[in-house]
């Protein structure tokens, strides 16, 4: 990265939810949805976020967008901390960060035409109206591979892949610096996923915005990302350059995750360090290293002390007591 300051800098982000119970609805516990997450994201860069269901990926995404209020932590966009800003003070930043959701069916208003959906942010932010707006929307349609004459159609007249293109066009309409993608291709047919992935990559190359890209499919994340962060129970346990992560995974959880991905080649029989057991509840996460209940390398220290993210080689950080900082594999 050439620039001094990253586009996005998240520091010690925490989001806790109260669990209430009983007739008095008293707080009986706390969901540690996000429990001290830090990362940076450069301009034009894609950071992938992977991890098991409930580990906090969407919560990270939503707090960055301030759709969910963080419990604590800083979210710096271009050096400005947007976490404490009021709704009005936040307004100019809203333009810069957009989101594309998993479900292109639920996220489009069925009573609006596709053109109105894509043009709505332009109206809301008083950027363009009338013919100028139509012109811009037509241009956006072309950018995402839709025909401008489809602007007058309603969402139900589009296929799933096309609807996701509409969502992408809307996200692009304000010229964002960062687009958060939360499982953008998971609901699409296999043969349609590649179309959308290629589109996302092409748009980024042309317009140089950044992606925070969430997907449960490791191969999809790996394909689109420059760097990948692996989350486990509300924390990042490993973050590295994509090629480095796949060539040299250092955290036992990352290793298990990679080994669990079924390879589409019948001759590639995996040498499986499969992990057993389920993901523990985020309500009372295990003490120390949260992975110790499933980790086959766990030592006594892992049960009591939480390992911090530490350098494990160039562009590579790991939170594990086994990491000796040299970046070598054992």
């Amino acid at each position, binding site marked *: 990265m050439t620039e001094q300051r990253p586009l996005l800098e998240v520091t010690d982000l925490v989001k806790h939810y109260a669990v209430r119970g009983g007739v008095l609805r008293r707080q009986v516990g706390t969901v540690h949805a996000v429990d001290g997450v830090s990362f940076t994201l450069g301009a034009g860069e894609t950071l992938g976020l992977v991890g098991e269901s409930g580990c906090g990926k969407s919560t990270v995404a939503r707090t960055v967008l301030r759709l969910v209020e963080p419990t604590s932590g800083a979210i710096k966009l271009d050096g400005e901390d947007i976490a404490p800003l009021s709704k009005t003070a936040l307004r100019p930043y809203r333009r810069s960060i957009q989101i594309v959701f998993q479900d292109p069916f639920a996220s489009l208003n069925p009573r609006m035409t596709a053109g109105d959906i894509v043009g709505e942010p332009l109206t809301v932010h008083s950027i363009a109206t009338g013919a100028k707006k139509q012109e811009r929307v037509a241009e956006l349609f072309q950018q995402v591979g839709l025909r401008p004459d489809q602007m007058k159609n309603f969402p139900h007249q589009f296929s799933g892949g096309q609807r996701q293109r509409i969502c992408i066009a809307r996200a692009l309409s304000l010229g964002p610096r960062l687009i958060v993608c939360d499982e953008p291709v998971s609901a699409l047919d296999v043969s349609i996923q590649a179309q959308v992935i290629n589109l996302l990559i092409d748009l980024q190359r042309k317009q140089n915005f950044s992606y925070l890209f969430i997907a449960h499919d490791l191969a999809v994340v790996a*394909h689109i990302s420059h760097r990948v962060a692996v989350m486990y129970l509300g924390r990042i346990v490993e973050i590295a350059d994509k090629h480095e992560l796949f060539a040299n995974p250092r955290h036992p959880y990352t290793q298990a995750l990679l080994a669990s991905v079924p390879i589409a080649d019948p001759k590639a029989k995996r040498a499986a360090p499969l992990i057993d057991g389920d993901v523990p509840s985020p309500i009372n996460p295990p003490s120390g290293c949260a992975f110790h209940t499933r980790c086959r390398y766990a030592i006594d220290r892992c049960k009591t002390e939480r390992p911090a993210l530490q350098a494990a080689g160039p562009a590579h950080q790991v939170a594990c007591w086994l990491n000796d900082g040299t970046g070598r594999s054992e």
Partner: protein
Amino acid sequence: MSEAIPAETVLDVKNLQTVFFTNSGLFRAVDDVSFSVRRGETLAIVGESGCGKSVSALSIMRLVPDPPGRIVGGSVTLEGTDLLKLDDAAMRSIRGNRISMIFQEPMTSLNPVMRIGDQIIEAVRLHQKVSSKEAWKQAVDMLRLVRIPEPERRAQEYPHQLSGGMRQRAMIAMALACRPALLIADEPTTALDVTIQAQILALIVDLQQRLGTGLILITHDLGVVAQTAQRVIVMYAGKKIEEATVESLFETPLHPYTRGLMASIPAVPSPDAKEDVRLVEIPGMVPSLTRLPPGCAFAPRCKLAVDRCRQEYPPLDEVKSNHWAACWRAGEIAEAS
């Protein structure tokens, strides 16, 4: 139609036709599909959403909702009996006994107000006369077999008290409690995380091979297919368009749709790869079953399509030994690859 079925064949489906009558017209969800499954074998069915995988499975189970659906042709022979000829009572005693099914979402097939152990007992006692004490012991044993920790305690619990992975394992326990000849697993791991998915698949395959059960595995994940199945059928718009051993299918896919599918899936980067290859796209979209083009249904999206493809439907030919494809140009493709 009268070739002898090899003795070890558990299931033999011939020319199955299942249609739906809907507002937008009649369509063939399963159109002339044939396949068989042997003892201890895993047959994978792949294809994109709506191509007829689940309806094929439901047809075997005779659980297609009627109306709007109906099986209008073919035979489904399980251990020598054509299930399509049985009356409802006879079919009920086959279901959950000789054939079991695992669904994607375990909550839809687990009873929320019944203890896990009691649900497995129901499956056991449906077809086996044992005392309630013996049945409970068998239920706990089944939970242990599917590696649920503390099976005695878990048997006393209700479905909502288990995690997603544990529920899926409980459902497998239930499905196998009656030692079926055939197990149908429809997207059994799609809703699960990869580490849990790997555990569950390993478990299904291990149990299936130990018990000699024939397994039909429905999935859209080619990685899962490569790692678990022996044979694969690929469906597109209600038809079987390719069938082969896993090795042959992954080495030389012959149908342009299968080839496109394989090329469009991103691979986990190999350690030595430094550059990303652009994914190959299959252009266009999946056709609607009510408005299928004449000829080959894949023609509007196929780079190799010629005039003939748009007029005549290609027959399913054995292009290579034990490798069938329904494509006018499969012969050329086989030669070129």
